């Protein structure tokens, strides 16, 4: 019945969906932002601690969401740790292209190691109504980096 669903719900997504990494509040965060997807009621709060050079020292999140948005947020916090703001923004652009089209034209010949890790989420592009689940965390990341308080993926 669901044989062909493994393209969307790959094991790594189910795993991160069930047991999200960095799922906690950072009390001493330098940046926080809230993300809302009013369509499906998903919401998350993102916390960033910045290193003296402005790069992301630590990233964590809390909230409620479907497997895809939770897994995406979980994978994101892992991926952006240690990155500069510019690098994180670039990853965000690349990831959103991947989620919307299934591929990433700006990524060059080979995917970066980071994009390889996010690759399992690319199946979402076949489900237009779910793309926003996958991108919510990244919208929120942009908002946090830009100093905004809220992001919406409506």
């Amino acid at each position, binding site marked *: 019945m*669901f044989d*062909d669903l493994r393209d969307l719900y790959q094991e790594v997504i189910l795993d991160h969906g069930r047991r999200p990494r960095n799922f906690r509040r950072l009390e001493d965060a330098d940046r926080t932002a809230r993300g809302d997807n009013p369509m499906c*009621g*998903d919401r998350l709060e993102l916390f960033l601690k910045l290193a003296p050079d402005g790069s992301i020292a630590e990233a964590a999140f809390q909230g409620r969401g*479907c497997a*895809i948005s939770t897994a995406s947020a979980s994978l994101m916090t892992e991926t952006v740790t240690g990155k500069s703001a510019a690098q994180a923004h670039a990853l965000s652009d690349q990831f959103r292209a991947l989620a919307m089209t299934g591929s990433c034209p700006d990524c060059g010949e080979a995917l970066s190691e980071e994009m390889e890790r996010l690759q399992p989420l690319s199946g979402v592009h076949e489900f237009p109504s779910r793309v926003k689940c996958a991108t919510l965390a990244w919208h929120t990341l942009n908002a946090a980096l830009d100093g905004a308080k809220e992001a919406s993926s409506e």
Partner: protein
Amino acid sequence: MSFDVARIRADFPILQRKIRGKPLVFLDSGASAQKPRQVIEAMVRCMEARYANVHRGAYFLSEAATEAYEAARAAVARFIHAGDPREVIFTGNSTAAINLVAHSWGRGVLQPGQAVLVSEMEHHANLVPWQMLRDEGRGIELRVARVTDAGELDLEDVAAKLTDGKVGLVAITHMSNVLGTVTPAERLVRMAHAAGAKILFDGSQAAVHRPIDMQALGADFYAFTGHKLYGPTGIGVLWARLEHQERMPPFMGGGDMISLVTLDRVEWAPPPAKFEAGTPPIVEAVGLHAAIDYVSAIGMPAIEAHERRLVDHAMRRLSDIEGLALLGHAQDRGGVFAFSLDKAHAHDLATLLDRAGIAVRAGRHCAEPLHARFGVEAGTVRASFGLYTTEGEVDYLAEALTKARAFFA
């Protein structure tokens, strides 16, 4: 006429489709129903052979289109047992019908200091217009009747909120689009009228599932929408007593709703034209007429009986599923089921079901306060039936839910 679901299904071209290689199991009729070929063909015939703008046209095609448009009004009137076709106002959808009452009757007749009483189980279409009226600062209060844990309207709370006589309008759903609950309409009419209030029903769901009788019901306003009644999008109905229409200022201004216009002065056309500004949904009225003929030929009582069997069957099958929590279990209910499944978020579940060819809706179904009331802010999955739904489809849904739970476990 006996109810032959296989023959009925053959009337719906879309039900012959495969979705992702699987037969379509369409369980989202509560959001919008599919259209039988009779409706599609009526619209095509109108556009191919009998089309022109209605009213004011003194030539053959315009007379034919006008006749068809007014015949649709008469068909709606018969369908809901209205006393007079002029009680039927065509709008764009239910939402526009309710907004018409809120704008026109709400601002023109309801007085500062009066209140509107809605319930916790309203669709946003019957909540937001009244919130907007409240928030205009004209001194209109909004009261909200509670829903019980069983998902029924709390009639004691309704009574309590009516006692001070300040409620000018009760605006309440006739059937919840989430809980499936059918409200005790006759009783609510008596309660409202005894308290000096008028009463409007949001019949968007109810009108599709059972016979509706405006003369027996005795309400003041009743709204429903074409696309849920197997008819086209772009058309809705407000039934309103003529005495109310007379007192209501118009909502939108334009052509066909006036009887005289000078630069200084306007005289309104008599009801219902007063409320139908501009070119109406002509082809859509013809389509709605065909839809009404279609369900009437089958018979609303037969449709209701079919649905009762389906509801009983679904109750049994769904309650067998481990971890499934149904929202509401009212005594009197129609074929709409909202539920959550432990282990699986509503949206993941809907996507999984979609892969199996099953169309269900996930979210809060335009009833956020109701989801808050039941502590399911993250949303539910909703399966809703139409006259073409079969027990086999319900079984297939149950099987898919069981497998989905295992998938996410």
